[in-house]
């Protein structure tokens, strides 16, 4: 049944995207390991940079899954991203062992600094990777479940939901800034040494992390694709377009919303967990409401309601950001970002990918070439034909 669930997702476009992601995920790290004199050599910092973008793309994909397909505009997805990041950060902190500044074999440096005597209970288990890996998915998922359970059941929708998700991430931001919380307070978690016994700074490790990010993004894409192509996905789109009508037909709307919200939060958590070892730090700033809203704009630029859109949007906007902020134009980046928000909502409501797809569809020749039809529309057509 699961294989059928996955196989239904595998149309030609999905193959292309998956192939592309895996090719990039394998090729770039290999090129980065070549000799610097090699003409196609890729410097390590480029790997780190693009690896970061891939994590952002996965975050954007998770936002798109709830916003583009279910109409839930979450302004708190950075919270799930950061929680995943913190779970990974805690594992990496425990791997430091006695190599910290204070050389305490049990306690991370910041706890020694705060005169703590023993590890708080919620740090237990994070010395095992498998435990951290479970937490990376479980913690954001649990938060999303509790939050969504209450919110969807009491039918908090639209902008109200957006505002309380923002309040949620803001409350977490404030909480993680507190030293008493036991997550390093203001400074967060940093100074990582090893991951699974490999030096986290080594080019080979970075290459593997990059590949893992590309793989995670590909898997995320595949899962989203499978969800959207399923009957469940159809109901999601129905909820997005006419929530009350869907409810009256007899679907339990809150259940559908809850499942997709939790799934999306888990994806965001995985994105955060891959982001942290590549960046080398996680601090409460990641919870900032502005980060969540930025992730939303990646989706809007790329095109919500398409699965390629958020990936393209995240890559485009972040390439732009890097290009702008590294040059003399750094000061003007916020102007550009702000203008992007306004311009996309006013002139490109479907985003770049959505607009291109719509144009391709409008061309008369494309009716005979189904490949140009977007995955969703293809699946809708398939469903209707069936």
């Amino acid at each position, binding site marked *: 049944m699961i294989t059928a669930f996955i196989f239904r997702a595998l149309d030609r476009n999905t193959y292309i995207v998956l192939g592309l992601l895996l090719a990039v995920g394998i090729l770039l790290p290999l090129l980065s390991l070549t000799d610097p004199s090699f003409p196609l050599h890729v410097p390590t910092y480029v790997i780190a940079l693009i690896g970061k973008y891939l994590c952002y793309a996965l975050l954007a994909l998770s936002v798109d899954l709830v916003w583009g397909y279910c109409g839930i*505009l979450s302004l708190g997805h950075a919270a799930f991203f950061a929680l995943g990041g913190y779970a990974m950060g805690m594992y990496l902190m425990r791997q430091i062992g006695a190599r910290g500044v204070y050389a305490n074999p049990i306690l991370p440096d910041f706890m020694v600094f705060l005169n703590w005597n023993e590890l708080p209970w919620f740090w237990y288990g994070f010395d095992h990777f498998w435990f951290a890996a479970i937490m990376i998915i479980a913690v954001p998922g649990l938060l999303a479940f509790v*939050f969504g359970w*209450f*919110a969807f*059941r*009491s*039918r*908090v929708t*639209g*902008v*109200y939901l*957006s*505002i*309380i998700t*923002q*309040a*949620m991430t*803001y*409350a977490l931001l*404030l*909480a993680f*800034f*507190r030293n008493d919380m036991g997550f390093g307070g203001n400074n967060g978690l940093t100074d990582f040494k090893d991951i699974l016994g490999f030096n986290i700074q080594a080019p080979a490790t970075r290459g593997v992390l990059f590949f893992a990010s590309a793989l995670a993004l590909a898997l995320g894409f595949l899962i989203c694709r499978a969800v959207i192509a399923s009957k469940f996905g159809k109901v999601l789109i129905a909820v997005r377009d006419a929530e009350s009508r869907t409810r009256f037909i007899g679907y339990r709307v809150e259940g559908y919303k809850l499942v997709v919200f939790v799934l999306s939060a888990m994806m965001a958590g995985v994105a955060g967990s891959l982001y942290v070892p590549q960046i080398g730090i996680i601090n409460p700033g990641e919870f900032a*409401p*502005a980060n969540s*809203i930025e992730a*939303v*704009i990646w989706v*809007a630029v790329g095109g919500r309601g398409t699965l390629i859109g958020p990936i393209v949007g995240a890559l485009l906007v972040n390439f732009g950001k890097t290009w702008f902020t590294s040059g003399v134009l750094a*000061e*003007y980046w*916020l*102007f550009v*970002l*702000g*203008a*992007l*928000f*306004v311009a*996309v*909502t*006013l002139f490109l*409501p479907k985003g770049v990918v959505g607009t291109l797809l719509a144009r391709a569809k409008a061309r008369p020749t494309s009716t005979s070439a189904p490949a140009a039809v977007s995955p969703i529309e293809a699946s809708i057509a398939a469903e209707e034909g069936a």
Partner: protein
Amino acid sequence: MTTLRPTKPILAFIIALLAMFALFRPAYGADVHPQVNALGQGDYAALESAITALAATGDPAAAAVLDALSNGDLYVRKSDGAVFKAVRAGDGYALTDLVTGTDAGTAARSDVTKIKVNNKIRGQIRAASGSLTLMNPDPKLRYAAAADVFKSADPAQIPLLDSVIAGEKDTGVKAMLVQARAAAVLKSDMSSDEKVAAVAIIAARGDQDALAILTGAGAAGADPAVKAAADAAAGSIEGQLQLWNGVQNIWYGVSLGSVLLLAAIGLAITFGVMGIINMAHGEMVMLGAYTTYVVQEIIRTSYPGLFDWSLAIALPLAFLVSGGVGVLIERSVIRFLYGRPLETLLATWGISLILQQAVRTYFGPNNREVGNPSWMSGTFDLGHLAITYNRMWIVVFALGVFAVLMLVLKRTPFGLQTRAVTQNRPMASSMGIRTPYVDALTFGLGSGIAGIAGVALSQIDNVSPNLGQNYIIDSFMVVVFGGVGNLWGTLVGAFTLGIANKFLEPYAGAVLAKILVLVFIILFIQKRPRGLFALKGRSVEA
């Protein structure tokens, strides 16, 4: 002769007055040379009594003499036993008569002897100098000295206090002296009647210091009557202090609530009444604050005399600047997004980034200094509550803005049109109301009010490009909590959240209190998705 005749009664009067002085305040204003010279006679014991005698005169010169004595600058002239302040000058000493403050010539080193002091004497000098200030002509200094004596509560000073109390004319100083005496009495071994009376005096003070003294008196466990009185008084003060503590929390909460109200009230119009999610609302507040800064800069450089009027000048300007920007935003962006709230949210977020960066580029990223006019600085006491003037004015101002806004919406043609358009747009339009025009002006009104809030907030917050960011989430919380579309809800919501926050703070700390309030609101919205005062009717399910 005739012209001289009136002098005789005047002379007699002055003599009588001097005699009175001599009676009530021994030697005040009289020649204190004998007491000063007594310092130079004999051993430490004699010196001690001489210091006490000198201090008892209360003569202004005595302080200088005692000061010189403790510094070891006081010398006796062997020839006549007179005491001078002496400073080394060449081979000998330059002498100063400290009583008259005049130069008294020089003396050879062999002609004078230094008056030696030890630590015990120094201690005595310190106490004596303190009591001297009790007789200082300046009532403020006397009051401060009396407060010092109250704190030290030294039983040895009771006789001195008795004499000073008898001569004190200023009621405020006198009350303080009486309290100081009572505090000293409680530490002395005087009769229990005296102590019970003292307990009553201290209890009337009713503050934290009084509580400390009374607990001390009660714990001493000397006399059962005193202990009972002290315990009863301490109990009642504790109760009162707790009450005042509550009152103080309420005041702080009201103060925070007024800030929230100011920040949210413009949003209550744009979001509550019009349904526009304006994420750039905080930036409208910021623009108002920067307008205040610019006005103050111009006044500082060109018209310094007008500084106290700077806020009054800034108010209309801030309204115009923020309101103008608001109208511009509505006309250029928001009107294309009506009915698409999530897109509006994103577009206005973009606008907020642009405005922040524009201000950062033009004014720089650092905090700008906005001064308090004189009528907004300082504090006053209300019972045991210290209220700062700027906080008080902001509370008054917030309520004033709210009242004016209510009047505009309920009593003016413009308000009527606004309500008509928000309630039923097609109907309003068909009745001849220019709905786009009303939209723009209403959005401008909401933004302008945010600008006015910026003027007030510039008085208590840092004026930086990030100013607005600090308020945007709180503002939305207040509006959503209070109930969208209901200005009264915003008022109640702001003060409820402010007071709740301040009552949680003592137990949870500032940050945790804020988190708890946020969590509370999130849960509250689950229960009442439309806020405290929900609008009823068909327009709700738009």
